[in-house]
């Protein structure tokens, strides 16, 4: 039997055949291409800062990240980034541009409640968890790295 009866006990399983499946392969390809293009663009930016401005390979990262964040914030404000996000998924969420989008979109959303209680309070509504886990993970890894250096 291809269709299961739709009753209370079995409902969650029975409705699975009605729900359209996410296109995992296609989503992965889109995410890879868009995420990759964002990184290529970042690489071009950092090369630009090295060749045309007075940066070396180590510190060219700083203006590159700042430029990407600025562009992502502008794209969010112009209403483009959410459409890119729907297309690319993790491809546009994982790079630093996705982080910028989560902060800018929250700021825009809560502008109507004022600068302090609206924008400032809600700025890290989505990005806060990223920062928390980023700091905790860095701390834990830092301890391991230190212990490693003591042993060897």
């Amino acid at each position: 039997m291809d269709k299961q009866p739709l009753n209370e006990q079995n409902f969650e399983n029975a409705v699975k055949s009605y729900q359209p499946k996410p296109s995992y392969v296609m989503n992965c390809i889109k995410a890879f291409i868009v995420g990759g293009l964002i990184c290529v663009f970042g690489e071009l930016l950092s090369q630009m800062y090295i060749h045309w401005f007075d940066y070396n390979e180590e510190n060219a990262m700083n203006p590159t990240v700042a430029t990407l964040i600025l562009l992502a914030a502008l794209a969010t404000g112009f209403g483009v980034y959410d459409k890119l996000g729907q297309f690319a998924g993790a491809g546009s969420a994982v790079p630093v541009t996705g982080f910028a989008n989560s902060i800018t979109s929250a700021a825009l959303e809560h502008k109507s409640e004022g600068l302090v209680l609206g924008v400032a309070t809600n700025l890290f509504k989505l990005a806060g968890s990223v920062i928390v886990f980023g700091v905790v993970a860095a701390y834990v890894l830092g301890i391991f790295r230190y212990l490693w250096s003591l042993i060897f």
Partner: protein
Amino acid sequence: MGKAGKHTWTFSNQVYIQASGTAVGPMEGEGPLGSTYDVIHEELHCGESNWELAERKLMFDAVYACLQKAGVDQSAIDLFLAGDLLNQNVTGNYVARQLGIPVLGMFGACSTSMETLASGAALVDSGFADQALVAVSSHNCTAERQFRYPTEYGGQKPKTATYTVTGSGAALLSRTPSPVQVEAATIGRVMDYNIKDPFDMGSAMAPAAWDTIKTHLEDMGRMPSDYDVIATGDLSSVGSPIFRDMMKQDGYDLSEVHKDCGMLVYHSDQPVFAGGSGCACSAVVTYGKLIQDLMEGKYNKVLVAATGALMSPMMIQQKESIPGIAHAVVLKRGEGAS
């Protein structure tokens, strides 16, 4: 006036819809029912400075379009029943502040459209009000903020997600004969079959639509063929086949008569995932297209079952499932019909 069967009210004192009004946003205006709306806003802000004000503007537009068509001044109205999707029912309450009509705020998620219509009809039928105004609204951007993420956040939504309709619908009820009569209403139970995905409300609400419509048909001793259309609110392309198959299991074939407002309101090539949702979804279709078709005699009797996912983001984070509800109202051609 009285109860029929288990959960159905029949209005024997003849309650009629005097007039109805609808207001929608740009995407709905471009949809297949674009010509049936009274007010279409070209821009999502509706000329206001924030989304909440935009939703309020939509409800004002729908209410005033309705009153203007009825030729009734707001001072002559006894009762205003209003609801929306926002916390503390802010849209309805702030519209009521300006209307100056005694108000009852109602919430049944997206089923509020038929909840207000059924309650309004009951109060007019019983004589507690001579003229009652009912209105609901939803706005895509206020709903996104209330239930999901900031509007400009680039998160990816699955294909089962729905798109909240930007709009508002209002109707004026009284006992004065008019072309559209409110014949009966069936009040739904909360049905929860343990669906937990907030991006799949169609699956969560299908059991509620099934329960209410089955109860309605049993209470009234009717078959689906007694209706020209049985419309569900916002089951979408996911929930609609689930609902139809659940009805089929009980021996009711709805393939000829069932329509889902969430799938009527947009073209299939509009970017709305599985279809439209929100209080306004069933309201703008019912108070626009369905009432016009009843007036023109294209339909004689329709059943509208507005479906609601009684979802709270906090309860979802606490791992609760999504309770569903559906309220159904029968509209038929009345005495005043030409």
